[in-house]
């Protein structure tokens, strides 16, 4: 009853009123409304200071002249705007090379993950292979094993692949192939495929479609949402990773941006380093801003459902 009473102009009116901790009635009073706007303003200020200001400080810091950058007290807005740090970072730190390396590593990992994880999830979900349960159990068990703790034996495996005795060090394959062994994404796909009724697929098979054709033209088009989530997870994971590429790529020319930034951070002017940091962040931040609705919805719903 109470929730249907807010008067016009109260904060609760604009969104369909869902009862939360504070009752809409309390917010409807003048005192409640004042308090609401004070809290609202405080939170906006806190969020801007805590999360946006550091990012602004980084982007603007790179535009200050080197001596303005180390001045105390610091200037809030650059006195003169220099773009030279950005161009220097681009040239001196060979950012195009490292960005390209990152793109190659992330894209390859993403494509291979989509191909192999989707195929495996399809087989486990719909084809009932012998020992399927055992295999699924083995895959899920890797979720329990913390990935970082196994990096050293994984590195040794990459350095000398069993049977074929090839090294994948300094090779994008060293990022791509281990990325396929992603139990979380495979499980997401499998759970989604499980929900698609078998009748749909059998109807296609009666019409003469083979397994691959069924997967490609029936199952995948129905799975767009989960494919999107898996794609974002796969791309972000590779782009953000540091320790694994640090182990795999000792060759500076092949390092992704994250490793290159740390390796070069010691002997480069501060403003150039900060400019490089900004450039390294732009692709992911852009992707986030474009897909923010999907990413946030994915985190909010995916996680609570387990």
């Amino acid at each position, binding site marked *: 009853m109470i929730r249907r009473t807010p008067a016009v102009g109260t904060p*609760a009116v604009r969104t369909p009123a869902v*009862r*939360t*901790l504070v009752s809409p009635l309390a917010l409807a009073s003048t005192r409640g409304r004042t308090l609401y706007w004070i809290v*609202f303003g405080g939170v906006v200020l806190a*969020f*801007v200071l805590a*999360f946006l200001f*550091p*990012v602004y400080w980084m982007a603007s810091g790179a535009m200050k002249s080197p001596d303005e950058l180390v001045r105390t*007290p610091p200037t809030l807005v650059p006195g003169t705007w220099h773009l030279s740090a950005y161009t220097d970072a681009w040239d001196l730190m060979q950012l195009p090379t490292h960005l390209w390396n990152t793109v190659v590593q992330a894209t390859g990992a993403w494509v291979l993950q989509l191909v192999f994880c989707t*195929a*495996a999830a399809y*087989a*486990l979900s719909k084809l*009932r*292979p*012998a020992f399927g349960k055992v*295999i699924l159990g083995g*895959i899920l068990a*890797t*979720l329990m*094993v913390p990935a*970082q*703790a*196994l*990096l*050293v*034996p994984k590195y*040794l*495996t990459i*350095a*000398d692949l*069993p049977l074929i005795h090839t090294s994948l060090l300094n090779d994008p394959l060293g990022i791509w*192939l281990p990325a*396929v*062994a992603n139990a979380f994404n495979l499980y997401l796909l499998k759970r989604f495929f499980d929900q698609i009724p078998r009748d749909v697929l059998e109807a296609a098979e*009666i019409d003469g479609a083979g*397994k691959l054709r069924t997967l490609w033209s029936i199952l995948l088009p129905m799975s767009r949402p989960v494919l999107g989530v898996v794609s974002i997870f796969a791309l*972000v994971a590779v782009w953000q990773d*540091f*320790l694994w590429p640090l*182990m795999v790529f000792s060759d500076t020319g092949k390092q992704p*941006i994250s*490793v290159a*930034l*740390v390796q070069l*951070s010691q002997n480069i002017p*501060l403003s150039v380093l900060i400019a490089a*940091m900004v450039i*390294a*962040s732009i692709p*992911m931040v852009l992707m*986030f801003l474009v897909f*923010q609705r999907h990413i*946030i919805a994915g*985190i*909010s719903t995916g*996680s*609570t459902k387990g």
Partner: protein
Amino acid sequence: MKTAQAPHRSAAAPPATPGPRPAGRAAAAPLRRRLSHQARAYGFLLGGLICFALFSWYPAIRAVIIAFQKYTPGSAPEWVGTANFTHVFDDPEFGAAWRNTLTFTLIALLIGFAVPFVMALVLNELRHAKAFFRVVVYLPVMIPPVVSALLWKWFYDPGAGLANEALRFLHLPTSNWTNGADTALLSLVIVATWANMGGTVLIYLAALQGIPGELYEAAELDGANIWQRVRHVTVPQTRFIILMLMLLQIIATMQVFTEPFVITGGGPENSTVTILYLIYKYAFLYNDFGGACALSVMLLIVLSLFSALYLRLTRTDD
């Protein structure tokens, strides 16, 4: 055997010969069909299976094996019993690394649990600019961790760093941040919390939205004030999610590496060496892969306990 399961195709195409089956011929046909079906199923599985075998299962087994070997790449490994464990144990950094890792995890748990929870609680009450808050709080998560670490390294700079400037602006005493052995670990926790809290806040928010409004109404009718409502409605209703996130966070923070590696390099006075950092040092600085694997196995055992607890809890709730 699992092969006993009928291929689901047989439902669509029933056996042509009804009545008592002649054992030999009729059994052979489904068997062949079953085999070809299995071959196809494994064809789809193969790529993923090879990758899991090579990069997940094999390294897990290998970690345990190498932990008992003297291993140098290029030469034949040599069994040394528990020597790796004993010499890792005698390393003064070993105790420091465990102490630092556990302290880091504990502080990160206190800050990383309390701050996002309170934040989600407040955000859930705000009726405006909902999308803005969600995007802004998640923004640091999308910034590459290396960049966050380098950014905060600059903030913590004792000279022109923003952190001390902010303290000076507020007329508070300045701090050594990552340059002081007693404040370094806490400074790193702040970085990790800043960079990772977005996901936690979003998950808490989703959980808070699942609380039925009637519960708050009923509590209010019973005369519960706002703190009592938080204590007796919000917390019990979200307890499961809180517990899940805590366990996941423990598992994640015990594997912390990027922040100490990039910001402090393990110093000052080993006050920020973590287990994973020590593993890295053994493998790539000391070239002692046996010691690195011995450490990995120890970390693995500790973390697997938490993982098992997590899986147990999520399963019983289903």
